[in-house]
């Protein structure tokens, strides 16, 4: 790991301080209180009491909701893959083939996300409805079953998540691809590498930081997502986010909701660490070029 010459620890500290103060005050502090509430027992009306003996809230919650945890990981994973499959070629095209149009194209990709999520989802529901412009003709032609549907299935949940995270996947990947020195690729060509070879051995490795960032920015929020399962799912597609939402707001079982949340965060952190190690990003980010 390169260390900036003759820099005291002061500089990184100064750079970090604003962010740490902000996150410390508005994330850490409130969530420490939330963490404490995961050791409560009781009800809103009767009052809650704190006790370390309530650590059983955790295994209890996990036991009840493991299906939802597993489903969330599955959907999150599938959505991230789908998102990557769509975003990477598009990012590649914009970075390498789009020339002067690239910033406009990039914003064409990202601008949809400045419209409201709810409106976009309703738009999709109109397009993919049971008798819509898309499905209607297919059904009258007998190509698909009358009772078949795309909406309100696991597929629509995953597709919905993937669709909504495309900017998060595409922007970091684009940013990584864009800064790749084109001369490296020219050099590879001069050395008789095929375009696939150059891609595999130069472009892809250099894009890894972007892929890493993009997939994290997609996968992490995707697991905890609830809105897609709510609007595009059915009673059998509930994710852990829906459970936490309901436990918190409707059942008002704050200890369980908090326990479920912290287990989710732990799960994600473990996954992130594993993923980072898998991709070897430590070594890659430490290199100067």
């Amino acid at each position, binding site marked *: 790991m390169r260390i900036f010459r003759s820099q005291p620890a002061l500089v990184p500290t100064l750079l970090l301080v604003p962010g740490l103060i902000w996150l410390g005050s508005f994330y850490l502090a409130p969530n420490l209180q939330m963490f404490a509430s995961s050791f409560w027992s009781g009800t809103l009306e009767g009052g809650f009491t704190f006790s370390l003996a309530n650590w059983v809230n955790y295994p209890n919650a996990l036991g009840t909701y493991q299906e939802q945890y597993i489903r969330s990981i599955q959907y999150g994973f599938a959505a991230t893959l789908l998102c990557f499959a769509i975003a990477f070629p598009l990012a590649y095209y914009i970075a390498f083939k789009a020339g002067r149009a690239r910033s406009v194209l990039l914003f064409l990709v990202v601008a949809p996300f400045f419209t409201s999520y709810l409106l976009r989802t309703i738009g999709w529901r109109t397009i993919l409805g049971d008798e819509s412009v898309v499905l209607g003709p297919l059904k009258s032609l007998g190509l698909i079953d009358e009772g078949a549907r795309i909406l309100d299935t696991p597929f629509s949940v995953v597709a919905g998540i993937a669709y909504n995270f495309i900017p998060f996947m595409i922007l970091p990947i684009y940013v990584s691809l864009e800064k790749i020195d084109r001369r490296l690729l020219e050099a590879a060509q001069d050395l008789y590498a095929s375009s696939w070879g150059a891609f595999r051995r130069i472009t892809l490795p250099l894009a890894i930081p972007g892929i890493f960032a993009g997939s994290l920015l997609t996968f992490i929020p995707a697991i905890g997502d609830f809105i897609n399962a709510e609007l595009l799912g*059915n009673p059998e597609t509930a994710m852990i986010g829906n459970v936490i939402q*309901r436990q918190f707001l409707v*059942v008002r079982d704050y200890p369980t909701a908090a326990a479920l949340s912290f287990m989710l965060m732990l799960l994600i952190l473990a996954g992130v660490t594993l993923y980072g190690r898998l991709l070897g990003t430590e070594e890659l980010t430490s290199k100067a070029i």
Partner: protein
Amino acid sequence: MDAEKKLGTELDRRTLLKAGAVAGAAAFLAACGTSGSSTAPSPSSGGEQTPSETLNFANWPYYIDVDDGVDTATADTSESLRRFQAEYGTKINYQESIDDNDTFFGTIKAPLEAGQDPGWDIITPTTWMAKKIVDLGWAEKFDKTNMPNFVANLADEFKGRTADPGNDYLAPWQSLMTGLGINTKKTNSFSTVNGLWNPALKGKVALLTELRDTVGLVMLGNGADPSAPTRATFDAAIAKLREQVDSGQIRKLSGNSYTVLLEEESALAAIAWSGDVGIIQAGKPELAFVVPDEGGMYATDNMLIPKGAKHKYTAELWIDFYYRPEIAAIVEAYVQYICPVKGAAEEITKIDPALAANPLIFPDEETKSRLKVWGEVAAEEQAYFDEQFSAFVEGVDS
């Protein structure tokens, strides 16, 4: 301009608002002779109190009259709010902030718990949530010397309720029915809860994530009584629901956005609220609202003054103002729910006789007899119900 294009309700509103303004003014001047009384309150005995400059009123969407061509009610765009300002000088900060009892409660719980002003002077939770708030000690008690119209004109059915026996904390705003919303064009019309389980409707049925509505109706379909729920009857209803979900009959358990499903015909039959169907019918006349043969659910949204509200006196003035029949009539004619104010019925029919025949506003006696309110049970019992229903919604195997 395009008045010819707009069907039904829009044209009615413009007409009735104009008529209402005239009728209301006349009724106000007359001030007596109708079966409800309408008086300006005398100052309370507890010292000098004046109406405040502003009043923070949180309500559900489309739950108050609104001028033609505007989508959201504010003190400038609602006749009833304007009249209040004209009389008392208070500009009401009206916000359509409540879309769901639980979510809204989540936003005011923290300040109320800390003993702080929650930011609202009047909120309108449904009775079961209102009772919870009262029981937690988070509601202000009415000073009824400021509210003579409320005392005189509250419909009798609301006196002596379990939630508020003395009518000291809750002032009913509107009542609504839960029944079935049925697309009569795409499916055979039916009138029973059990008709929802018709295999012909497989994958086209939507239920609500509201326990009292969904489980209530299913219990009625099972022949049980939701006004006195027991673990046995509750569990049987849940079993029925799980069975229907497993067979793929139920397309979705949704919250407020169930109307989207009915609109786009993803659901051809749903458990629905009376007022919503009334709204959709304007664009989709084939959608019918039916109170099932076995019975329907009935609920009321109530005005409540949260503890620590800054403008309690003015809030009481507003509640009282609403309980003047001519004011309630203005609101009522627009929102098409069931009005708890005595004398409003006569006022409405004066404004627009056609509304008298609207079964959503004036359900007949036979229908009313089939409506049930979810029973108030002990806290532990209700907690059991909440847990079991949530497990069902979340897809947890019991």
